[in-house]
């Protein structure tokens, strides 16, 4: 009953030839408009949306990107379809440098990349029929000479998006379609130009559960049949796992971990990935998992923390993390981690039957080996950070 999906492990991915995207040191800064006086003084502040990102996307591959809101994953996707212009760095699409393209060449490039947006209720123009919506890219790029040609192309695109029979949908308006159908129209619009690369930015998070699986399977089929590589952006880790061959975990504008999707899920190596995975709710009421809590909020992307950007929230941080920027190391073949202690930390994995050894009496999360902890005279244990916050012991009431 439960057909298993063959997973591309890291090794298989490594063997794949045909690099679609080669991105190096890609950076996007959004300047913040300062006041008149500050501008005279020459102070310049920027939001570091994407910060020195380096990755490749191979042929027929789906690269998943996960992270909290505000981590720069959407900006990263927008850069790849050149809705944003990079501040620094190189991005090569089939060997062609894209970052500096302008005018006619940019338009030619845009014909080969497409984007699927999050909300099909907003990304479709309510006053255009399905045909007009899907035919618009054809008009923009002067594809097809006659109406009949275009109709044929639109019909095919609708069929690829599994809206059958296409005639039934072609002259409807978005308000006559359900959420799932709208997203299929949005997908058909991206397919009509036969793109060589698609960025899908949270394409299923606005859809209902029962429809979601259909849209995800559709995208997987498209990859299977036509070999279109995807970048799949989502904050939902379980959805990204289902969709992707490789997963990149983003934090504050940079990748902290990048590996085959099962490697990231089953063998996370970065403390942030650990926290992210442990926060994912599991559809099984009997599942018990050791929770790793992440402290604090996302720091401001305007003034990035020095050293490792994750150190203010990291449970394993040491002095070196505060001053030195870690390297994006290849710990195992194809498994990149941005951490000084990658591979050395006792990371909790989602499938671990984790027996809690000690529980912090303040935050009720587990204290694992290697984490800084404080033991009170009565035997109660606390995380070091939590101990700073409690004045009296919650068990015996004595002062810490």
């Amino acid at each position: 009953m439960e057909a298993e999906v063959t997973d591309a492990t890291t090794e298989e991915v490594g063997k794949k030839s045909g690099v679609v995207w080669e991105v190096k040191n890609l950076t996007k800064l959004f300047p913040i408009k300062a006041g008149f006086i500050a501008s005279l003084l020459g102070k310049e502040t920027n939001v570091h949306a994407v910060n020195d990102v380096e990755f490749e996307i191979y042929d027929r591959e789906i690269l998943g990107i996960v992270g909290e809101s505000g981590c720069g994953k959407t900006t990263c996707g927008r850069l790849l379809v050149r809705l944003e212009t990079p501040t620094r760095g190189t991005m090569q699409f089939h060997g062609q440098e894209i970052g500096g393209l302008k005018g006619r060449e940019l338009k030619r490039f845009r014909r080969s990349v497409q984007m699927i947006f999050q909300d099909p209720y907003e990304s479709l123009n309510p006053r255009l029929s399905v045909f007009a919506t899907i035919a618009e890219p054809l008009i923009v790029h002067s594809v097809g000479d006659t109406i009949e040609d275009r109709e044929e192309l639109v019909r095919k695109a609708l069929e690829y998006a599994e809206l059958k029979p296409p005639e039934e949908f072609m002259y409807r308006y978005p308000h006559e379609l359900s959420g799932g159908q709208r997203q299929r129209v949005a997908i058909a619009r991206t397919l009509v130009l036969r793109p060589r690369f698609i960025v899908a930015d949270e394409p299923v998070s606005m859809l209902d559960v029962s429809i979601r699986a259909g849209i995800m399977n559709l995208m997987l089929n498209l990859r299977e049949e036509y070999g279109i590589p995807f970048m799949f952006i989502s904050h939902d880790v379980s959805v990204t796992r289902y969709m992707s061959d490789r997963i990149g975990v983003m934090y504050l504008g940079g990748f902290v971990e990048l590996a085959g999707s099962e490697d990231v899920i089953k063998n996370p190596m970065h403390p942030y990935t650990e926290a992210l995975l442990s926060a994912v709710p599991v559809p099984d009421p009997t599942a018990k998992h050791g929770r790793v809590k992440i402290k604090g909020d996302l720091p401001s992307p305007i003034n990035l923390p020095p050293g490792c950007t994750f150190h203010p929230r990291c449970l394993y941080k040491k002095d070196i993390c505060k001053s030195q920027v870690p390297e994006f190391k290849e710990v195992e073949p194809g498994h990149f981690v941005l951490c000084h202690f990658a591979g050395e930390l006792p990371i909790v994995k989602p499938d671990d039957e984790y027996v809690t050894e000690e529980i912090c009496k303040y935050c009720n999360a587990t204290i694992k080996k290697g984490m800084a902890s404080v033991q009170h005279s009565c035997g109660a244990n606390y995380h070091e950070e939590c101990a700073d916050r409690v004045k009296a012991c919650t068990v015996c009431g004595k002062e810490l």
Partner: protein
Amino acid sequence: MVMLDIRNLRVYFEILKGKVKAVDGVSFQLDRGETMGLVGESGCGKTTTAFAITRLLPFNGHVVGGEILFNDVVLARADMATEMLELLERERWLPRVEALFERRQNAMHALKEKGLGEMPGESEILLAEEEIFLEEVGDILATKDKVEPVELKEMLHDAGKAETTGFFADRRKRKIEKEIEAKMAAIRWSEISMIFQSAMNAFNPVYRIGDQIAEALLTHEDMSKDEAHQKVLELFDLVGLKPDRVTGYPHEFSGGMRQRAIIAMALALNPQLIIADEPTTALDVIMQDRILAEIRDLQKEMHMAMMIITHDISVVAEVSEKIAIMYGGKLFEQGDIVSIFENPANPYTIGLTGAFPSIKGKKKRLKSIPGSPPDLANPPLGCVFHPRCKLAQDICKEKMPPTIEVAKNHRSYCHFAEEIYTGKMKV
């Protein structure tokens, strides 16, 4: 002890084209300190159920059948004429109307003998207003052996129409509304509070957040402004917000902070029941996990009951003990969460759980449920799920399924509930 008791609730919306049966025969109970997850796709009636409980239905939404009791206080009940008119539209209407008549008549007798003080779960004004109509229906039903059923139906229909339309009917309706609303005003927020969907819009953007929470306190409790602000500070501490934020405006708060502020507001008066409508949908996983943990801790601490409304079945799996799965205005399966997850007895539940990816275990191919949710203004005949159901047979297209209790605390609305539960039928 049963705290919230919803019996056969029906909420219909009036639209130009007719009626939208948003909630159609929903019954469940919630005890003190219990957590229930109400799960379903958008448009299945879960939020409408919540709005019916808090009496926040929009102007065109009406409770046309059933009742909602909270600690034996009637929060909503369709008047007899409306309910009877609704019953007349069904097959086998006669026994149903008779049962309704009998129930109301017994209540009336009991009221006259004992007085309302000893009659929990009744509303004096509702009964008093119905006395004449009750007699009228009694007279019509007494003639049932002498006249044709068609004629009887017509007579009942005419009586019901006369009772529900016209100037006096409107005035009576307003009077009852006013009375129940007065009771509800005391209960709302102090005993039942609600965490609204989209924390972004739940606050008034031109008032400081601290003042908005204090307003709820000042309305319900006899305290000075200083005391109220002191209490707001305590609440902020409880949900992990910094005290200097009380003077902030909603736009200065991030999504997660606003959600916490809403939770603080919901907790302000130590309610017995919190209805959380999609409390974490707009948040990312890390914030969601934190808010859920917070809600769970606070709930344990204060021994509140909670109803979580969500479309995410895994969120429910994390926090609740009971689950109710809604589809097309009906409860498809309800009961103990472990029993339902391990041994589902409804094809829709199986479809829903099969459509969810997980990070645990092996990667499985997801199965989507074909088709889309039904149009509730014009629901399919028989079981509302049959056009999308893999197991659908002829009986499903013709007859509405019964609700079958397959195990203790586990009920399923399906013709083949037993067969699916015992594994004789596989989806």
